[in-house]
């Protein structure tokens, strides 16, 4: 019963949503609209559960003295935003938006900008033309790195055109094959999930 019902729900909703793609009938459309709305609502609850389990793990770690300071800072951050939203709402000028713009966004983009440094250090140490494939990769990378800055036009007017040619034909052809591969992979996985053959999503409770 614990496995039969979920598999049946998955089958029923999978077939309905697959079938409605091919129909223009108003009933099919209305069924489709309802399910889209349910999907949105349940998905939001999934994220609420995620937030609740983060809070629970943080509290448990604090009580077990595992990195208590950092966990309580994180918990404080988790509580600050909803409290600010309750007090001042979320419109322009609200403390909620203020703390997003002056704390969350700057830190998030700074963490991401760290990668510029790691790319530079890896470029010096890690990226060796050890094999033919690695050499092709590095040469293409240089064609793009040079071609997409004004330096290219100083070398020759047609340099950017070379970069675009490499990007629009050989690189695009390989990417298209990857896309087709992923497309087929997603399709077979979706079929196995709907037919109840692939059940990994039931694990990990």
């Amino acid at each position, binding site marked *: 019963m614990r496995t039969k019902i979920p598999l049946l729900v998955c089958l029923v909703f999978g077939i309905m949503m697959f079938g409605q793609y091919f129909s223009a009938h108003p009933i099919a459309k209305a069924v489709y609209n309802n399910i889209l709305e349910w999907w949105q609502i349940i998905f*939001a609850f999934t994220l609420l559960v995620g937030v609740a389990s983060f809070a629970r793990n943080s509290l448990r770690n604090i009580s077990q003295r595992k990195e208590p300071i950092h966990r309580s800072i994180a918990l404080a951050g988790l509580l600050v935003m909803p409290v600010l939203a309750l007090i001042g709402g979320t419109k322009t000028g609200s403390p909620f938006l203020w703390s997003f713009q002056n704390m969350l966004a700057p830190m998030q983009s700074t963490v991401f900008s*760290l990668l510029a440094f790691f790319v530079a250090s890896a470029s010096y140490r890690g990226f060796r033309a050890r094999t033919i*494939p690695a050499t*092709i990769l590095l040469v293409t990378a*240089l064609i793009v790195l040079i071609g997409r800055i004004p330096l290219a036009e100083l070398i020759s007017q047609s340099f950017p055109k070379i970069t675009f040619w490499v990007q629009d034909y050989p690189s695009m*052809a390989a990417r298209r094959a990857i896309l087709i591969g992923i497309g087929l992979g997603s399709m077979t996985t979706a079929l196995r999930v709907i037919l109840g053959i692939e059940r990994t999503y039931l694990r990990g409770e």
Partner: protein
Amino acid sequence: MEIGTIIAGILTLAIYSFLYRDNPVYKAAESWLIGLSIGYALVVFWQSTIIDILIVPLFSEWRIILIIPLVLGLMMFSRFSSKTSWLSRIPIALMIGTGAGVAIPAMLYARTLKQMSASIMPLISENGTPNIEALVVLIGLLSTLAYFYFSREHKGVIGNAAKLGTYFLMIFFGATFGYTVMSRMSTFIGRVDFLLTDFLHLIK
């Protein structure tokens, strides 16, 4: 200078301290970041979905059918005790089944059929000269597909085709690597702009 910019500047430098070494100041800033981002997401989800398309329509417009997604949503909370956690499988199954159902036609049409027909071009153009681009796309596509063909060993014709496919893949990964370096540098330049203009007022 505005208090917000000062705080943003200090937090930016706290994060950059990681470049020297992983240190408590960085760890504190990052924990604060993790907490804020989860708290922010909680507010935005709550308002945009739970309130807007569940509570308001259900309790003020009386769309009774919304009781079903409400109950299914609450069943997600059953995950917190091992005795009842199997109940969460039903809403998860609904989401995964729905996602799989809409994915099949999208993957087959937009990602396979459309890409196949976009690759079809006459091999000889109107003025009789060979169409190099069409040839490169055809060879690149088929040889890369050969690389991702698993039913036969990479020997003989398939082996050579797959090797050629590797080279096309390397061109794609090389171009992606070049553009990714470009992306990371732009992000760093954006932070340098903030530090030099807004925070330190060194330049206009």
